[in-house]
């Protein structure tokens, strides 16, 4: 571990750390543009100059290019280093437009920050600025090339890190251009990361353009709900509207990036016609009335059919809080069934996959990135869990061979197609990882992995499928298809469930809680509107058994564009905003149990789940395997 001195502060860093990172580790931020932790050094921007006063290297050096070594004495405040940094910023600002007031990046712009940090104020260049034509890059990303400072981050991410081929760098000298051969949507499923990685406003999120400034944002650490990987994100909202989603760093999980499928869909949260008011038989009503109606109908149903004919339905897309509360409702009523999965085969496989994972063999995305052999069995990663495909690409870039059993359409990495698991030389690798789609879980895979000390990663269905599998075991849950097939079930109460099977007409849907308009909701006698994940705190357990906390980002309510202009100015003065009466599902269940005579439950995580109460939303998560 090299020991060096930076601005008179002694610091010890791991082997291979560069001087720029070493300085960051003690809170000294040296301006930089081309260097990025996930992309490494490039040496292109020359903004990170420091003066090496003593040690193995002397003089003015670019700190990102210099591995920290024993005995280095570094000054970041040396006059020559500061003059160099000022020069670099002056050069970059020669052509950068003064359009910060109309630029979406303004306020969260690395170039703004480092221009100030670099000490450049008065521009001496008095000639014409360089201008470019912008390109149409699809409906998600706006392109504004005049702002470009040629740090090459975008092309290094797009081509090298993410394997895209339709975007690159063209031209030379002072007319370098970053774009496509011609206008057209970016093809990479990771294109949205250009928005995050661009240090200024060349690439901005078109779906949130001109909507808010950084200091207006409602935001909080959150977890992506779009697949089972649990990538860390920061959703951004304003005026009760989810505006955009940016990647949040978690080195164990997604690293620095997320996929476009996690970034751009926002309609479920912002939909104007989303369930926002309790309904009884299709008529809007208050929470009190809806809960009273539910109690009455439930009592009537139970008297008529008995408790064994009722099923409580949880969901792999619902938080741990909601799903544990569903189980408590099931216990309270002593209902016949609790169901977390629709299909029995699928449920069996998910449970088998989850049961086979141990703290030693569960592979995180980071384990995949660091693997020296990757085997993929029965999973089209780009379709099912895009970030896992990106993780595999990083392993492949580092030289790990990739073997695929079955279909794989990814172009992110080269692979050897093999007929069966036994054709893969797992034993030759030191850190092999086996990635498996849920539909292909079987004892052969689990045994093969165990024999070869390979880590395992299963792609599950839903952000909390892992949690649902654990709860299924804990409460002896039945897949819904089985419950229905038994013929005993005559009614159900569903929470955020996406049923994949046709419910027989004879089964009553007494109540359904959801934040989305699902087919089940239209059949429900009582509709209970619930909060979207950005409107509440909660916990998801991802595919590797990592429990992660997401925090409330925004107050629920109808986005401003959904308000009736005739209703302005408002005549009704209330504490809740219009459409803001939704509740987190676990709270809805708590209200139901209270109505049924139980004590009010303040914290849904009880018993063995109590340890998740203290989960830090900004930490790496807690393993529950």
């Amino acid at each position, binding site marked *: 571990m090299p020991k060096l001195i930076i601005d008179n502060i002694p610091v010890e860093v791991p082997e291979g750390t560069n001087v720029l990172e070493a300085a960051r580790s003690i809170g000294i931020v040296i301006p930089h543009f081309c260097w990025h932790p996930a992309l490494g*050094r490039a*040496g*292109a*921007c*020359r*903004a990170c*100059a420091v003066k090496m006063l003593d040690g193995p290297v002397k003089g*003015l050096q*670019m700190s990102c*290019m210099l591995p920290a070594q024993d005995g280095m004495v570094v000054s970041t405040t040396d006059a020559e280093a500061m*003059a*160099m940094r000022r*020069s*670099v910023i002056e*050069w*970059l600002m*020669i*052509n950068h437009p003064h359009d910060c007031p109309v630029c979406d990046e303004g306020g969260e712009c690395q170039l703004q920050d480092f221009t100030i940090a670099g000490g450049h104020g008065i521009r*001496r*260049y008095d*000639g014409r600025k360089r201008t470019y034509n912008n390109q149409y890059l699809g409906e998600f990303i706006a392109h504004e090339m005049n702002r470009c*400072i*040629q740090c*090459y981050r975008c092309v290094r991410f797009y081509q090298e890190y993410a394997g895209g081929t339709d975007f690159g*760098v063209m*031209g*030379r*000298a*002072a*007319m*370098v251009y970053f774009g496509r051969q011609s206008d057209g949507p970016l093809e990479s499923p990771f294109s949205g990361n250009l928005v995050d990685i661009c240090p200024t406003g060349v690439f901005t999120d078109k779906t949130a353009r001109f909507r808010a400034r950084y200091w207006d944002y409602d935001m909080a650490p959150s977890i992506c709900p779009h697949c089972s990987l649990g990538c860390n994100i920061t959703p951004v909202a304003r005026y009760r509207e989810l505006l955009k989603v940016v990647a949040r760093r978690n080195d164990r999980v997604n690293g620095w990036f997320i996929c476009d499928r996690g970034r751009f869909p926002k309609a479920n949260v912002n939909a104007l016609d989303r369930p926002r008011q309790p309904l009884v038989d299709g008529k809007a009503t208050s929470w009190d009335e809806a809960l009273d109606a539910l109690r009455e109908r439930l009592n009537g149903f139970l008297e008529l059919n008995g408790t064994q004919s009722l099923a409580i339905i949880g969901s792999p897309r619902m938080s741990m809080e909601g799903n544990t509360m569903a189980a408590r409702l099931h216990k309270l009523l002593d209902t016949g069934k609790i169901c977390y999965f629709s299909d029995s085969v699928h449920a069996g496989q998910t449970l088998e996959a989850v049961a086979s994972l141990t703290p030693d063999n569960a592979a995180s995305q980071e384990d995949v990135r660091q693997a020296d052999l990757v085997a993929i069995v029965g999973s089209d990663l780009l379709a099912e869990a895009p970030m896992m495909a990106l993780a595999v690409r990083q392993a492949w870039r580092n030289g790990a061979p990739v073997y695929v059993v079955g279909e794989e359409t990814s172009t992110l990495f080269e692979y050897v197609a093999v007929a069966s698991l036994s054709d893969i030389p797992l034993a030759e690798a030191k850190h092999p990882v086996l990635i498996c789609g849920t539909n292909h879980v079987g004892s052969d895979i689990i045994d093969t992995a165990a024999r070869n000390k390979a880590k395992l990663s299963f792609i599950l269905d839903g952000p909390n499928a892992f949690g649902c599998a654990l709860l299924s075991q804990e409460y002896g849950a039945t897949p819904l298809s089985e419950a229905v097939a038994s013929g005993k079930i005559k009614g159900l109460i569903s929470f955020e469930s996406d049923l994949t099977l046709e419910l027989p007409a004879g089964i009553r849907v007494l109540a359904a809680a959801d934040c989305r308009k699902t087919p089940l909701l239209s059949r429900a006698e009582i509709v209970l509107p619930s909060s979207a994940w950005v409107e509440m705190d909660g916990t998801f357990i991802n595919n590797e058994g990592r429990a992660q906390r997401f925090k409330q980002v925004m107050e629920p309510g109808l986005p401003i564009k959904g308000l009736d202009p005739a209703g302005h100015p408002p005549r009704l003065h209330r504490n809740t905003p219009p459409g803001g009466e939704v509740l987190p599902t676990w709270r809805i269940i708590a209200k139901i149990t209270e109505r049924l005579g139980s004590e009010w439950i303040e914290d849904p995580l009880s018993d063995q789940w109590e340890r998740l109460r203290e989960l830090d939303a900004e930490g790496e998560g807690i393993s529950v395997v």
Partner: protein
Amino acid sequence: MTQILLRQDHTGQCLSFGQYCDAGGFEALRTALGGMSPNDVQQAVIDSGLRGRGGAGFPTGKKWSFVPRNLPGPRYLICNCDEMEPGTYKDRVLLEQNPHILIEGMALTCYALGVEHAFIFVRRGYEQAAANLRTAIGAAKQAGFLGSDILGSGFSLQLDIHQSAGRYICGEETALINALEGIRANPRVKPPFPAVKGLWGQPTVVNNVETLANIPAIIAHGPTWWKGLAATPEAAGTKLFCISGHVRNTECFELPLGTPLGKIIDGPCGGMRPGSTFKACIPGGASTPYFTREHWGVAMDFDPVAKAGSRLGTGGIIVFDQNTCMVAATLNLTRFYARESCGWCTPCREGLPFLVHTLEKIEQGLGTESDPDILREHVHALNYAFCALAPGAMGPVEGLLRLFEDELREHITKGRCPFGD
């Protein structure tokens, strides 16, 4: 005065393979393959004191010695014939007259380095040179000097020509390697140096045409003889000087290394053109600071020229007479470098256009008192660019500030160029 590259009897036409062989061509290769070990050849080059002729003047034998011998996989030799430095045309003259000497030199080098596949990276515009090389390679193959099991020695060599897509930066050895691999010609991070990790990740030596063309003479006549061709005891061998500007004879001459500047201009160049008097010159290609009358006696060898504040570079001498505006000359050169920047690093990509803009203002009489400071800052800061292009581009600007500051200031105080349009 002995010449080994441009033989005295050259006619301006390309030497045929037969003529070259008749004049002792490929004897050095026979000698080496007949009885010298690869190490012997390398040692001879080290002993000769041969320094790279492409501009940097790095000792050739030393460069070869950086190649690790124990790594698996192939090693490569690349001949850098991407001659694009303004004022430099020696490689073109050489290849248009005698491509065979380069092939023999490369064969010897490959033998010394254990290379079995070598490339000649030819500048875009050098069609004739490429054609000559193609013919020469064909003839050499036919005669058994290239191909497999050369002269029964067991040593094999494949030699390929790659014609550049054309940019100055391709002359930078790592950018050249990228260009050869078919990717963007941006320079690579060093270290690792090409000698360790170059073309397709394998150890690669990149040498200039003239450097390699000197190897046959070193092997044929011995390093001591070759070293003695120079004009001073410190220098080694001969050098191609290509002359342009306001002198009578603007040609490429092969002269002993270390010949004083004045002797070159007054001697083979035939002095200044009628009506012209010497004002300044670029001593070694467009990236070297100017020399003036006070440098008349400087021996044109790497170290003495460096000591006098410039660089021998490629030996491309551009002579300016009394009517030359040095601001305009510098502007012209800086425009070239601004255009030829690869666009990778900020100082080069943005700093050079800023300099062009500032020099344009000064030349047009719109300069201000603070403009020389802008030039001075750039001369310093551009040293910290990614590769050697931007520091090289600062050669003339540094020379302008050091030697012609009065002339520069005159532009600003008079509000016009004192030399007119």
